[in-house]
């Protein structure tokens, strides 16, 4: 128990901060994923074949390639790519991207592919009559999307989005290879300096279980809220 006490002697406070870091990365990745989904879902549903192809290659490649490989691509290639762009604008210094941004972006791109599929499925399962009714009523595009389609889509999408959240939360453990101090990295450091890997990795597993459990509870509430009237 001394090992996880707060203060200078234990690893409690470090692990607590690391858990907050995991949550922060997961939320950032999820939001970046939504951004990607916002771009690629309309492409998937578009009637132009070429746009479909672009969106399909994004989701297929990202969902078929290991997460770790995507992380390595961004970790080793990220600053190179940014520097390449910066050189075009006449900036020649070395640019280092921080591990949080690298991690959140790479996990975000992965979770974006899953979110895209979820949103596509949800929009496709909305009754066709709803779209036609909006058209007949002559609703503005903005109202049509945010007031009619979006609430219905969210009700259908939330159960699947909760799966995406769970995947994203667990994927954040892979960012530890880039050196970002989240739960996994902190446990690695603690295990190394105390020579007690069994305890610290089991404790890390417990922290992840707590996080998944709590987020499940929260999402269930959200689900209830969005399925009022059903």
């Amino acid at each position, binding site marked *: 128990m001394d090992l996880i006490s707060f203060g200078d002697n234990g690893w409690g406070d470090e692990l607590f901060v690391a858990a907050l870091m995991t949550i922060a990365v997961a939320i950032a990745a999820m939001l970046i994923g939504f951004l990607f989904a916002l771009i690629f879902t309309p492409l998937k549903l578009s009637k132009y074949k070429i746009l479909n192809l672009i969106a399909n290659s994004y989701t297929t490649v990202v969902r078929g390639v290991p997460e*770790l*490989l*995507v992380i390595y691509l961004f970790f*080793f290639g990220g600053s190179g790519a940014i520097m390449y762009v910066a050189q075009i604008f006449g900036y020649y210094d070395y640019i280092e991207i921080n591990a949080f941004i690298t991690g959140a972006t790479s996990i975000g791109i992965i979770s974006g592919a899953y979110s895209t599929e979820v949103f596509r499925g949800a929009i496709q399962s909305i009754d066709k009559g709803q779209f036609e009714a909006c058209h007949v009523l002559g609703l503005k595009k903005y109202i049509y999307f945010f007031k009619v389609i979006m609430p219905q889509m969210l009700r259908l999408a939330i159960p699947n989005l909760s799966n995406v959240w769970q995947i994203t939360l667990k994927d954040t453990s892979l960012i530890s290879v880039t050196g970002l101090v989240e739960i996994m990295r902190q446990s690695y450091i603690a295990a190394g300096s105390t020579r007690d890997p*069994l305890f610290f990795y089991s404790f890390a597993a417990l922290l*992840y*279980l707590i996080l998944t459990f709590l987020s499940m509870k929260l999402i269930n509430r959200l689900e209830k809220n969005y399925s009022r009237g059903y």
Partner: protein
Amino acid sequence: MDLELIITIFPKLLGATLITLKLLFASLFFGLILGLFFAILRLNKNKLISSFAYGYSYLFRGTPLLVQIFIIYFGLGQIEYLRTTFLWVILKEPYWCAIIAFSLNTGAYTSEILRSAFETIKPGIIEAGRSLGLNKVFIFTKIQIPIAIKQSLPAYGNEIILMLKGTSLASTVTLMDITGVAKFIISTTFRPVEVFIIAGSIYLFITFLVHNLIKYLEKKYSYNN
């Protein structure tokens, strides 16, 4: 884009594919056995037994695979007693540790897939078997299992692909699978894009094969045609 580099690294990554496939097949094999075992426990009427199976699947589905590998590879070696038993022969090898972790992980997901497949079988079908005087084992192996296989094929196909991606974590415990070799090449040549394209294509190709195999099996097992 450096074509010469691509030509030199392609055989190296292709060689590493063998380890990835070995890991994949071994963990799917053991995972399927574990999955079937725990799915049967899950359907047991005894609350204690079914909640034990539920606990197993919750534990392994709620924690990242990376933690599971680290607990088995770094953690178990710490127990002095284990080092004296014959188990240590297996547990000191990163290869077997990876397979154990993957099998337990995919076993948990498989048990959920099989459980829901068993639950969707209409009770009437089992009752029909019973009224024909078939015994329990016969009903299970000849009626329930074939139907469950058909029901669970699409979900199990997804699980195979997830497991394929999961094998990349073997590289964190020093194994040189596709991702391990890819990381090594990236860190020596600093050409992440080329390596990503080649390694990614190999994974995508395997995914493509799995996808088509499942499609073929689905067709074969559907009784409409």
